[in-house]
């Protein structure tokens, strides 16, 4: 207790110097916290994005043996239907994920968008937040109705109002102009960061895939939603077996990948990336610690006489050791706390700028502050021991 008061007054007596010493700690801690939190935030964004997509999303394609792609490598609508039938409830959606960039027209206004096709059970694939009207349904797909769900911005662009339900739109498909009825308008809820990552703000409208894909179309790949993500490995096995059997191709040529696998890969990549960068930032903590050791050595030398007086008056070796250790620990802990506050504010400001909810894990803060106090104690130990071992007679004579 007395030591804390003593250390505080020693730190106060040399305000500027103490602050400069802390600076190393402040920079170290704040960068570690900012970097690790940035990594955690990115992982959160990715996880969230995959949750929006659905972790059950998987796709499959067949690699050709001889650069020629024919019936046995490509998929037809009929084959897609048969796969879905064979898998029953284990797959909630099978489609081709057809998407084309094309122009929409309404009167004299037009707009370039992505037209994305959705197969039966469309909400399993895309479940946008509808603000007017309704989402596409199975009836639209089965009966090949020319129905369309617009993005809010497209609606405003084309009709000057968000509520474009009931309007008709002309779409250029395969060189024909086809007329669609707007049945719904949705709002894009992606974060600003995600939009930026997706490269600009191309708007997307949804139509039944059955309109984009004719009976005899051949498609490269099949997209599906596995109902139970935990069964992913087993389902992969079943689907590959089924396709190899029905299409008479080698199992090895069938390539199947899933969102949960991809996410796992990206997540572990981001994780190790932020760990590596965080570790580099942690080196600056060690540099900060050396700064503390340096200043403590100066302080011990400056206060040789004081140490001598204290020893002459009855201070034990331990008393002096603790006095200087507490001082070092207080400098680094104070630096650690200021650094934590700074790191958290940097993360918060960054999150505000990108419109994302940031993640600052408590354990990151605890580890960073504990580490800084340890650095302070570790690097304070040598100077403190030097002080404690001083001989009172010699120290008193020190000028």
């Amino acid at each position: 207790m007395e030591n804390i008061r003593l250390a505080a007054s020693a730190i106060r007596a040399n305000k500027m110097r103490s602050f400069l010493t802390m600076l190393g700690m402040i920079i170290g801690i704040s960068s570690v916290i900012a970097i690790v939190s940035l990594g955690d935030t990115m992982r959160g964004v990715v996880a969230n994005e995959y949750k929006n997509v659905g972790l059950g999303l998987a796709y499959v394609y067949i690699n050709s043996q001889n650069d020629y792609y024919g019936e046995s490598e490509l998929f037809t609508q009929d084959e897609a239907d048969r796969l879905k039938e064979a898998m029953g409830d284990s797959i909630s959606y099978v489609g081709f994920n057809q998407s084309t960039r094309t122009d929409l027209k309404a009167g004299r206004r037009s707009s370039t968008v992505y037209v994305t096709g959705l197969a039966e059970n469309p909400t399993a694939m895309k479940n946008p937040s509808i603000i007017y009207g309704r989402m596409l349904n199975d009836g639209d797909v089965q009966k090949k109705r020319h129905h369309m769900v617009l993005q809010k911005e497209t609606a405003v662009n084309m009709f000057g109002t968000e509520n474009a339900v009931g309007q008709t739109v002309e779409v250029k498909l395969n060189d024909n102009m086809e007329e669609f009825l707007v049945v719904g308008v949705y709002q894009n809820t992606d974060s600003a960061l995600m939009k930026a990552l997706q490269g600009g703000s191309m708007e997307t409208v949804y139509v039944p895939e059955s309109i984009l894909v004719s009976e005899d179309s051949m498609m490269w790949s099949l997209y599906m939603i596995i109902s139970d993500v935990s069964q992913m490995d087993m389902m992969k096995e079943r689907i590959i077996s089924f396709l190899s059997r029905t299409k008479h191709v080698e199992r090895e040529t069938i390539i199947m990948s899933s969102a949960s696998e991809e996410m796992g890969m990206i997540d572990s990549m981001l994780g190790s990336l932020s760990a590596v960068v965080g570790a580099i930032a942690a080196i600056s903590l060690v540099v900060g610690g050396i700064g503390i050791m340096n200043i403590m050595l100066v302080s011990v030398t400056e206060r040789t006489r004081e140490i001598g007086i204290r020893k002459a008056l009855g201070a034990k070796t331990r008393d002096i050791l603790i006095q200087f250790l507490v001082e070092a620990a207080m400098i680094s802990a104070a630096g650690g706390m200021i650094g934590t506050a700074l790191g958290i504010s940097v993360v918060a400001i960054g999150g505000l700028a990108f419109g994302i909810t940031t993640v600052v894990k408590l354990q990151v803060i605890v580890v960073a502050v504990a580490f800084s106090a340890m650095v302070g104690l570790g690097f304070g130990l040598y100077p403190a021991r030097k002080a404690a071992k001083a001989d009172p007679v010699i120290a008193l004579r020190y000028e």
Partner: protein
Amino acid sequence: MKEIIKIENLNKVYDTGAIQVHALRGVNLSVYEGEYVAIMGQSGSGKSTLMNILGCMDRQFSGLYELDGISISEQSENQLSSIRNKKIGFVFQAFQLIPRTSALKNVEIPMIYAGMKREERHERAKRLLEKVGLGERIYHMPNELSGGQKQRVAIARALANSPAIILADEPTGNLDTRASHEIMEFFTELNREGATVIVVTHEEDIAACTKRIIRFQDGQIIQDERVVKEEC
């Protein structure tokens, strides 16, 4: 009467590598409770060396030294700290107050290391400073005090844990005549109250305040006489 200091055949050699300085040569000395002793001698005769040993700050000697019945050469480093803290009140020529620390705090330091409670040592430090006539200046920093005032703070500090003996190595060496006499009056007063006091000095009239004068030369006691007390 109780023997506070008992020294037999005390020798001290400073080994500075190239040369060896034989600073004390076979000193024998006994000081009893309530004595008031002056140590005199030429510069370099070994007075400070003896005081450092008496003050338990220097354990590198040969011979016997018992303080209040405790054999000093057998004590550990930490035990010596505790003996310095409780049994010895040291007053230095250069005052040795801790800078940027108030008079009150300076006086409290020995009590902190003795583990005394905050309020208690606060009270006691205040009373001691009043006793040395600095009741008005307890919150002054050392650099805001005159030499004589600093030495009075140091005396108050030496008294903090009611030591068995007060050791003063040229306490008036940095003071003018008037301040010197003031300081000596404190020692005389303390001795009258029963304290055992040993003072190193170069000045005869300072020594004349005491009751026993020991003269040193080349690390040996050459004279040890009781003085008929004259008023200082």
